[in-house]
């Protein structure tokens, strides 16, 4: 029994060390003022409706507060800047209120910015959970699951994959409580 307990304890310690190590490495890769540009694809899935929507575009990120995603459809974009969260789609520009503390979109905006910078520990802390880390030879994968997410606009599960060499984001999958997902893949 003692051996089993010791084994479990050892596993926990190793896992923690590994998690801490990946997060530390991710943090080390990202510096203030870093810029990142990439082409991307966005896939929205509604499994219950058998519906998939795909869009493409280019993305520019500048730490810590700027993210612009320009879609190939003319005039369509998503812009995050200091105090700004703006979405232009179908000829309509929607500006979301992000200054109020309790604003859902303020949190979503912050989550995207942290995810781009690999600060998954901060996202996990914000939803009062732990991030789970894993790695392959070339990539780190981080998953944050919000057990309290219920509303349609909440994020139930966030999965991000980072390039080990550059630390840059490779993909990001956002899963809503209703099972719908939005996946971004960098090319």
């Amino acid at each position, binding site marked *: 029994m003692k051996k089993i307990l010791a084994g479990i304890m050892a596993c926990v310690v190793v896992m923690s060390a590994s998690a801490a190590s990946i997060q530390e490495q991710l943090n080390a890769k990202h510096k203030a003022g870093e810029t990142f540009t990439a082409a991307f694809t966005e896939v*929205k899935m*509604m*499994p*219950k*409706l*058998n*519906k998939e929507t795909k869009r493409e575009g280019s993305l520019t990120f500048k730490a810590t507060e700027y993210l612009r995603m320009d879609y190939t459809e003319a005039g369509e974009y998503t812009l995050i800047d200091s105090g700004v969260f703006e979405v232009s*789609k*179908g000829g*309509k520009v929607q*500006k*979301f*209120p992000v*200054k*109020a503390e*309790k*604003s*859902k*979109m303020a949190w979503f905006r912050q989550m995207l910015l942290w995810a781009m910078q690999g600060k998954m520990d901060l996202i996990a802390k914000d939803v009062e959970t732990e991030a789970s880390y894993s790695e392959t030879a070339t990539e780190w994968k981080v998953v944050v699951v919000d057990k309290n997410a219920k*509303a*349609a*606009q909440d994020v139930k599960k966030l999965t991000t994959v980072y390039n080990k060499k550059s630390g840059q984001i490779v993909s990001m999958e956002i899963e809503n409580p*209703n099972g*719908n997902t939005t996946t971004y893949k960098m090319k």
Partner: protein
Amino acid sequence: MNTIYTYFKSHKWLLLIILLGTFAGAVYYGMQCKLEENIFKLLPKPEKSANVPALAFSNIKLKDKIFVQASHAEGEDYSEMLAEAMDTFMEKVWAYDQEPRKNGEGLGAIENTLSEIDPFVLLEAGTYLMEHGSAYLDFTDEEMNEWTSAEHVEQQVQQYLELMDTDLGEQLYDIIAYDPCGIVMGGGLERTLEEQSRHAGEGRTDGMKAFQHNHIFTKDGEACLGFITPSFGTDDSKKAARMEKNLERAKADVEEAYPGVKIMWHGTVIMSAGNSLRIKKDIATTIGVSLVLILLVLAWAFKRPTYWGLLLAPIVYSIMLALGLIFVARGWMSFMALGIGAIVLGVAMSYCLHVIVHYVYVGDVEATIKAQAKPVLMGSITTIGAFLGLLATSSSLLQDFGAFASLVIVGTTLFSLIAMPHFFPKHNDANRRAFAVLEKINSYEIDKNKWVCGIVFAWVIACCCSSGKYEFDANLRNINYISPEVREAMDSWSEKMNDGLQQQYYASFAETTEEALEQLPRIEALVDSLREAGVVKNTIRISGMLPSLSKQEERNAHWMAYFTEEKQAEVWRNVEKACAKNGIDADWFEPFKEKMAATEEPELLSEAGILPDEILGNFIENVDGTAMVYFPIKTTMEDAKGVKDVLTKMDGCMVLDPYYYSTDLVELIHSDFTRIMLISSLFVLLLLLVTYRNFWVAMIVFLPMTLSWYTVLGAMALFHQPFNMINTVVSAFVFGIGVDYSIFIMDGLLHGEKKTMASHKTAITLSATVLITCMFSLVFAVHPSIHSIAFASLVGMITTMMLSYTLQPNLYRLYLKIKDKRQKK
């Protein structure tokens, strides 16, 4: 009095100790006396009854909201700029509110602001309503049969899938999952909206059709709207004034950053601050300027600065004494009563003038005290009697005024007769030339000029005949000051939001929110009947949005009774069939399946935590332990009073208009006041009878005072000047000063000495000059309540003086003639 004088003459140190000691104590306590600026706190609180809860209107947050408008000079194509300008304005207002002041803390005047509505809040509210849909829905079994039929469900699912190709559809994904049959989204909601529209009347959207850029706009889209809920009530005008400064700063910032944008605001808190500021400015300019003039006249008459000090010392002493004693007894007094009380200082100064002027004439301190003690004491006792009567009224304003005036007169009288003579200069050398001028004026026997007497009597008779026709304006709103800026904002709001109609909030009130909500439909039914009669033009049915728990239980029971297990299975088969036909998974509608089987526990929306306080506060509030559920009603100006009369008669319904309730109270105070004036008159007459021990002499003294009171009433009627709560109270001082002048003139007539009469007349002339200058200066006041004092007081003062100078000597001569004839017989 001479005994007291002699005692203190040999114990001057004791007099000084008493004077300085009492003055120091009075200053210490008087400076702590809080001056209450909220006029509604001065009115008696309505008794707790079925129709009005015993709550302080000042604690109702809804009525204190500040309404902000951002508009552009060039019209409506600037909605985005206006939304940004409104956000910037609110940000700046918050920033200035939190800016550390001298004490290191921010002002903290704002509880919350509302300008931008997070669309996700609306989505969450929508999801909540779907989860609790059964509690919000009225339906007939036939209607539900139709909505849940296979054809209807198939059609509905088809429509949803088309909607899913849009951004809106994606956002509504979870809401739709609760409603494959379109019970709420299609049939039920549509029917409920139609129902609401039918009940609401004209302009159901409440002038807020436009919801652009997550902001509220007027229906013409020309103005972006914002709301600020202050953290304080109308009673804290200091905080309100500071807050308005912050609003002004934010306005300047925004108007500079967004050229062409204009920011306006209005609200009761702002009006309260404006009132307070206006009163202070008016008092400073009118009374301030007149005081300078008065001091110049006094300086001219009494060239020695010692006399100036002697005139002012009793006034300062008695003011501090009055404030100190009021603080000890109560802790606070009305600021308005203090302002009005300033007029009594004129009466108080009149006693000092009589004593000093007599000393100037006789040059002997003891002779002065001997000659002045009786008339000064009589004058002050009768005046105090008149003012003390006000303590018996139920209004704090009248009580404060009565207490302050009485204490000031007590202080001044005692100071003038006991302390002041010890400080008279050894040489009674005033400005002989000035006194000669005054004597020359007074030596003219005006009472023997038939023309003057005829005009005075004709005026008095004409006024007395009209005295019953005066009007009393009980509406306190008419004596409120509204600045041009606030007036512009109010007019703009009324035009854009209310189509020129008057919007008034009402409340269903009870001990608990549930009770208030339960009785709301009963009140709304009455509103409906008024709407059908064309009196109510528009309203919002809050009971549809906020059903009571019992109503929710009733609806849930109906839902559960309809959705039997067989029915659930039948409807779900229809849903599955429709989904299969459209190639989607019926699991999407799993939430609906669950809702068919079990309803949510009834819950008040106000306690669900769905709506933020800044939105919820417009509908529900708990004030002093009373639950209030608000609803707005729009009427024409003409019908507003009638609607209030009808609705407030209903148990548990009140109008959020303190002026409405104060009107009755002010009328009560007015009749209270009239009764007390009568009692005071009888007291004065009794005192005159006891003092003179001669009915005719007492009547000759009493008559000018009484006639001047009726002359004021008649003059107000003849010149269409309405009485209001303020100028009625102030007119009481005419009564007080009338008694004094009559007593002094009678004293001169009884003594028969030219010197005594000359001394009294000089003092009266100086006193009247002081008071008439003060009264006349009020004509230039901007605040309606202060301005309204001027006419009544001026008429009263001049009439009193003229009657004392004309009627009294003629009556006295007539009395002597009759007496002589009787004696000769």
